[in-house]
């Protein structure tokens, strides 16, 4: 089932959570709503589920206006951030719940329910847990039960609200992979909300980045990461260094580096900033680039992060560069060493685009 949002707005008192949002989710897509706290992503998800009603706009399921449909008629599976499992029911009864509350006509026979539940538990690799209670399971196991429960009623679309937020990083990593595989196998339409850009990039086909109630950009992960359309998206999707752009003699500079090839020189490019990712900074001999001093070196697994104080830049705002471990082993940069910087890539934005 495809989902379309047209002009959705929602306010809570004076706070505008969602402003005039349009979004298209084709059938079978796995899309991530990504953004910081308060950006409206969870509100949007809940509007799709029917847990909130929008003030304006339409929610279309396969082209039909579902904006005012009650929750139980929407056939959406919803997985809550804190699982919302029924504490007094066993795992089996939790997963079977949706099947047992169907109206008499549609309700499957007890044997059929049992088979369905067992096969779902197998799918989420919890066949052994049928008689256990939620309190006896770990966070990751509970999350899988919540997922199985939502899938039991064969929803047209699966909505997940920060599904892995409350889990350890190792468990998160495994569950992300597993959700991706599940989606590839079953091809349900799926929307999940997260504030973790790593997660969005790893799991989703498409990412919609939200900020302050609006969609700033949406596209495939590589597009959003490599070709951000605003400073907010650029900053949110990964680390950045921010440097002011200066115009001298009709050309745009960052420090001594000429960036005129991509900068808007016309009409005064002052008041713009350049955003450069740590791995886009090239480090070479001092004479070959912008002179800088290495102020700190951190070895982090496969990469090495260098803090650099570039000539003419304030000391308390160092630049961060990343190089591979092999390169570091080869050249052994050390604190106090003088190097020269060049930029491989950069993007320039007006400082008005400096969203919080």
């Amino acid at each position, binding site marked *: 089932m495809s989902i379309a949002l047209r002009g959705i707005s929602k306010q809570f008192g004076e706070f505008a959570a969602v402003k005039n949002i349009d979004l298209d989710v084709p059938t079978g897509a796995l899309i991530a709503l990504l953004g910081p706290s308060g950006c409206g992503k969870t509100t949007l998800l809940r509007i799709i*589920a*029917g*847990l909130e009603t929008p003030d304006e706009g339409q929610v279309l399921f396969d082209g039909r206006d579902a904006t005012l449909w009650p929750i139980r008629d929407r056939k959406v599976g919803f997985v809550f951030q804190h699982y*919302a*499992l*029924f504490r007094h*029911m066993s795992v089996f009864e939790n997963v079977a719940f949706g099947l047992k*509350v169907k109206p008499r006509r549609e309700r499957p026979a007890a044997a059929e329910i049992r088979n369905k539940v067992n096969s779902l538990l197998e799918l989420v690799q919890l066949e052994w847990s049928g008689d256990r209670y939620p309190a006896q399971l770990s966070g990751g196991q509970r999350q899988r039960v919540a997922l199985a*429960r*939502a899938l039991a009623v064969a929803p047209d679309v699966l909505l997940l609200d920060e599904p892995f937020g409350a889990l350890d990083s190792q468990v998160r990593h495994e569950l992300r992979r597993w959700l991706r595989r599940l989606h590839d196998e079953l091809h349900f339409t799926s929307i999940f909300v997260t504030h973790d850009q790593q997660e969005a990039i790893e799991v989703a086909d498409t990412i919609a980045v939200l900020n302050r109630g609006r969609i700033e950009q949406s596209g495939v992960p590589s597009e959003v990461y490599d070709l951000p359309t605003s400073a907010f998206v650029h900053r949110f999707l990964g680390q950045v260094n921010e440097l002011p752009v200066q115009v001298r003699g009709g050309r745009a500079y960052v420090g001594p580096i000429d960036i005129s090839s991509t900068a808007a020189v016309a009409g005064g490019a002052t008041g713009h900033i350049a955003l450069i990712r740590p791995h886009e900074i090239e480090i070479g001999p001092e004479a070959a680039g912008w002179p800088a001093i290495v102020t700190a070196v951190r070895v982090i697994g496969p990469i090495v992060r260098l803090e650099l104080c570039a000539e003419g830049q304030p000391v308390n705002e160092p630049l961060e560069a990343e190089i591979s471990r092999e390169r570091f082993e080869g050249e052994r940069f050390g604190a106090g060493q003088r190097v020269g910087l060049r930029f491989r890539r950069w993007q320039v934005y007006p400082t008005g685009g400096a969203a919080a």
Partner: protein
Amino acid sequence: MATLAAVELKSLKMPAAKRRTRRQLPGFGLTLGYTMVYLSLLVLIPLSAVFIRSFGLGWDHFWDVVTAPRVMASLRLSFGASLIAALINVVFGLIVAWVLVRYAFPFKRLIDAMVDLPFALPTAVAGIALTALYAPNGWLGVWLKSWGIQVAFTPLGIVVALTFIGLPFVVRTLQPVLEDLDKEVEQAAATLGASAAQAFARVILPALWPALLTGFALSFARAVGEYGSVIFIAGNMPMKSEIAPLLIVTKLEQYDFAGATAIAVIMLVFSFAIMLGINALQHWALSRHGGR
């Protein structure tokens, strides 16, 4: 006489002074000692007097006293009326608690505070007020009389008084549980297709019934021993509308200590059994759901 208190003392082992695994605050011996002495002198020893006096009767005599028709009638009345009153309080207490926790309406906070009135109001005041209301010429009594129902001076009046007394127990026991209900769990039930009735029956009620049982038991236990609010509105006629506590008082006035203590023992045993039952129930509910 001191044996009961001594038994209680022995069951509380104090850690040896030298066995400190971490810093201890001062005053343990003083406060615990004072607590035990005060408790024994004012509660344990006096209570044991009832049991010991009764044991002095011998089993046969005790049994005779307790099974006398008048005594049996009063016990049946006390327990029966308390049971009905507690059931009424469960039903309406649930509604009241539900409404107070989940809905908004004018004066809600005032009404919420009023629920404690039966706790705060002296029982004698409640007694005469209820009698004034339900007497044949009272505000409600007049109206009920036109329907042929008499409340005051009948067992029905006793039930009314006991309902008043037990009202806050169910409401106050339910409120925190209702407040703690996870809204997301209800929403999950809705996304899975449950109707409001199904969600209530399958998701909310199971979470409530330990508290319902506790409230019922508290209301019941309080009602069985109630005296002040009942004796004005009851007819106090032996065998018909005489509650057990009143019978104890009557026997005391006649210096029938045997009779008075025998009834008291029955009531105490029952009350303690209910208390232990409530404790066990909450222990079980806590362990099953892993606490909140």
